[in-house]
């Protein structure tokens, strides 16, 4: 049993929320893709330098051992410290636990490859018109709902109509939808139909978008149909609470829902009519387990697979004998941001303030040089988080610029930068004053959650103090933190520096986080080159991959130079899998599908 279990429990109410840091762009695939990584035997291999691990030593595909038996059932552990909400429909769900359940019995019509680009291997195929604006989709003839009705173009249109309806109560209506021709007119009630969507025949649908951008191909098409023969007669506002969503949810995925115990478990059996072929397994049981008991559940074989492994428990359990750890690079990064302005709610743009306390490029560059994130990753996370270099994480191998080193730990360089910029210690107290000679106090806020949050933030404060900067730290709970950073556009003027994290969508375009009219541009930073590059990355020319890569390499370099925020850590996701499980993988574009999932024994292997 992990000895630090108690403290973990104490942090329990906050833990799960502090980790869901938002900004996932509404793309459902939970796990990111891993670059490299060769197959290996059992568990993560410990490196020579005592207790350090590296994501490169993990594979994202399970090693198959033995022969698959016919049928069998497995248990999937949904790791969550809160129950699942039970809004079991892609068009309405909002919590991550619900999405984990949905994965098993429903899916999108389109699939994507390891670079998150839509492929033609899914339940539907697509063609793009010459001008890149009109997409024609053809749904496979063998794609049927669990009740035997075919999945039709009408269903797909219906999903768009429901999400675009003013009474819709889910979180999906976003820029992906407003980019469809006629959607805003439909949403405001001035049109009865969405002019840009056309049902060609029973299985064919065409959608015309206002703006053609390469982002359309990476997750910006809504590919989850809604069964019109079931929901068609309901009022839109009633769908999310209807028994057809909560008690007998429907999909067209590899398994069907048999029964649900609200908030704690779901039992599923195979869908023999699944379009990719009949699943190997007879059924799946999904049950909620708490993050404090994950290890025990895995060791006793209580669960075969889990949704999310608390990575901080890995070092103590790396040798667990009955599981293989799969690993992948998370689509996320931790960062430190500088407040360079405020939010102008009137015009919905950033009000960049050249006079802001932190608005000195050298000061920001120096603060990046002053911190040793390699050490942070090793000391706090045993190498399972590691030094981040640019604002496009390596989970996007096509666009992450490997050759860009970011700013390495170099206190000398930090001191030099500060000296040159005029931040000198004029009163001899060991701390620098600002160029005008006034005392400089920087207010730094960070989020609580987990055992290491505070010591980690303290480490940054000490590192900055080592180069002569006085930084005051305040630890805040998730909601207060984002309130003060300016989640609602009302930034707290007393905040100068903040530490947070972004989970990034499968689409690489960062304009939702750094554009001048993005409210989540918490740094409130505005720059001409930045705007130009972000626009170029979305432009039609960017359908050319090499061009787009060049644009984003330039953008990554611009951010290293200007430092409105700097990335601190990239992270790994780990997923232990019971040895009896075959044909399983995490990440995207693995071409391993749930209908192939199998076991080589009736019951799970238990730990020795």
């Amino acid at each position, binding site marked *: *049993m992990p000895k630090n*279990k*108690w403290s973990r*429990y104490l942090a*329990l*109410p*906050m833990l799960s*929320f502090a980790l*869901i840091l938002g*900004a*996932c*762009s*509404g793309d459902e695939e939970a796990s990111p893709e891993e670059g490299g990584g060769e197959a290996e035997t059992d568990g993560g291999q410990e490196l020579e330098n005592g207790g350090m691990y590296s994501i490169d030593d993990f594979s994202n595909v399970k090693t198959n051992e033995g022969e698959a038996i016919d049928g069998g059932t497995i248990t999937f552990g949904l790791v969550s*410290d*809160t*129950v699942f*909400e039970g809004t079991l429909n892609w068009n*309405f769900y*909002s*919590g991550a636990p619900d999405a984990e359940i949905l994965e098993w019995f429903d899916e999108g019509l389109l699939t994507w490859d390891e670079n998150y680009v839509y492929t033609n291997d899914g339940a539907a195929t697509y063609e793009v018109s010459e001008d890149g604006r009109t997409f024609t989709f053809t749904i496979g003839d063998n794609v049927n709902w669990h009740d035997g009705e075919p999945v039709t173009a009408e269903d797909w249109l219906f999903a768009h109509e429901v999400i675009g309806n003013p009474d819709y*109560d889910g979180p999906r*209506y*976003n*820029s992906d939808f*407003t980019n469809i021709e006629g959607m805003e007119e439909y949403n405001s009630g001035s049109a009865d139909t969405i002019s840009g969507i056309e049902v060609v025949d029973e299985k064919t649908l065409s959608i015309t978008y206002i703006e053609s951008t390469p982002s359309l191909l990476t997750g910006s098409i809504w590919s989850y149909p809604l069964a019109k023969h079931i929901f068609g007669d309901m009022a839109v506002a009633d769908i*999310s*609470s209807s028994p057809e969503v909560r008690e007998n949810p429907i999909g067209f995925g590899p398994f069907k829902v*048999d*029964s649900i*115990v*609200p*908030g*704690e*478990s*779901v*039992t599923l059996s195979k869908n023999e009519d699944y379009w990719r072929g009949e699943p190997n397994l007879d059924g799946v*049981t999904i*049950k*909620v*387990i*708490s993050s*404090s*008991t994950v290890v*025990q*559940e895995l060791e*006793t074989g*209580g669960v075969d697979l889990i949704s999310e492994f608390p990575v901080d428990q890995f070092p103590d359990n790396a040798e667990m004998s009955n599981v293989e750890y799969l690993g992948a690079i998370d689509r996320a990064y931790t960062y430190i941001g500088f407040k360079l302005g405020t939010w102008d709610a009137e015009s*919905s743009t950033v009000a960049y303030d050249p006079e802001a306390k932190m608005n000195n490029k050298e000061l920001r560059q120096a603060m990046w040089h002053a911190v040793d994130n390699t050490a942070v990753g090793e000391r706090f996370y045993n190498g399972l988080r590691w030094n981040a270099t640019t604002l496009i994480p390596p989970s996007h191998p096509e666009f992450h610029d490997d050759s860009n080193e970011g700013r390495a730990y170099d206190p000398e360089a930090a001191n030099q930068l500060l000296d040159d910029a005029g931040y000198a210690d004029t009163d001899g107290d060991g701390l620098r004053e600002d160029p005008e000679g006034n005392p400089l106090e920087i207010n730094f806020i960070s989020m609580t959650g987990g055992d290491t949050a505070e010591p980690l933030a303290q480490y940054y404060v000490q590192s900055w103090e080592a180069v002569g900067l006085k930084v005051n730290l305040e630890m805040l*709970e*998730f*909601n*207060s933190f*984002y*309130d003060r950073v300016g*989640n*609602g556009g009302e930034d707290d003027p007393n905040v100068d520096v903040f530490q947070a994290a972004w989970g990034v*969508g499968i689409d690489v375009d960062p304009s*939702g986080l750094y554009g001048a009219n*993005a409210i*989540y541009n918490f740094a409130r930073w505005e720059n001409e080159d930045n705007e130009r590059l972000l626009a170029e990355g979305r432009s039609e020319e960017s359908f050319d991959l090499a061009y787009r890569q060049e644009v984003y390499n330039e953008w990554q370099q611009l951010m290293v130079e200007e430092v409105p925020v700097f990335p601190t850590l990239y992270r790994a996701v780990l997923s232990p899998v019971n040895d009896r499980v075959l044909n399983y993988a995490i990440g995207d574009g693995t071409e391993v599908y749930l209908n192939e999932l199998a076991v080589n024994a009736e019951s799970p292997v238990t730990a020795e």
Partner: protein
Amino acid sequence: MWKLIVRRTLITIPQIIVLSILVFILAQAMPGDALTGLIDPNIDPATIEAMRERLGLNNPWYVQYIDWVKGVLQGDFGQSFRFKMPVSELIGERMINTLWLSLATLILTYLIAIPLGIISGRFNDTWLDRAITGYTYIGFAAPLFIFALVMLFIFGFQLGWFPTSGSVAPGTEPGTFAYFISKLNHLLLPALSMALITTVSTVQYLRSEIIDTKQKDFIVTARAKGSSESRVYNRHVLRNSLLPIAAFFGYEITGLIGGTIFIENIFGYPGMGELFLSSISLRDYSVMTALVLLFGLAAIIGALLSDIILSLVDPRIRIK
């Protein structure tokens, strides 16, 4: 007697009103709301603002409060933002679990407390008594959530005697005998964990009560008349000592509510306590206020119950 009950009930009404206002103001003072966690660059902030407006989150607290009271008076606690279902339905789903858990805990508490208290009181200052008081001191000192985790680890995972999470085995048909057994099996360990800790104060009460009573004059008289020792204890000492325990019953209910919040989280048992904690963290106000009101109500009724029992068994304290 009736006068007391009516008066005592009348007092609870303003208590509940004050409680509900307090809850509302405190909820308002918390940073963030149900939509704060929705940090998604794809969603236009204007859409979020419109949702806020529609949910009435921008209104001042007293407007929200009046709206809420209007609903409550009609039995409508509003809609849970997170679960997208009516709060009353949601709580109803969870309340059954919590009620069973509390009931099982209560039964176990008294099953443990009464024999231990009697033995300890009757044979006070023997080794047996010292062992029992020793246990009660440990029980006082051990935090419930740590004790529960240890129980879960030993009996749930090491020995595998009990299921480790949930309130029923997945896929069991509701209404069948197997369903009932599975439910019972799932709540035994959490109930036992809680009972073993909460029982210690009752053991102590009973013990000191018995020691106190057995030195009273009427006991001496009973012995002098030649009553057997067992008759003295069963007829005279025990009866008189159990009275305060009965009065303590109402407060026990209040204590249970606090306990289930921890226990339900540790055992992944979806009841009201678990719902309460997650509603606070996710700012699901409608659920949170309804639950606080229910908890408050339970506490007030518990106290009322205690007062009533007390006045029934001890006419001296009845208010004139």
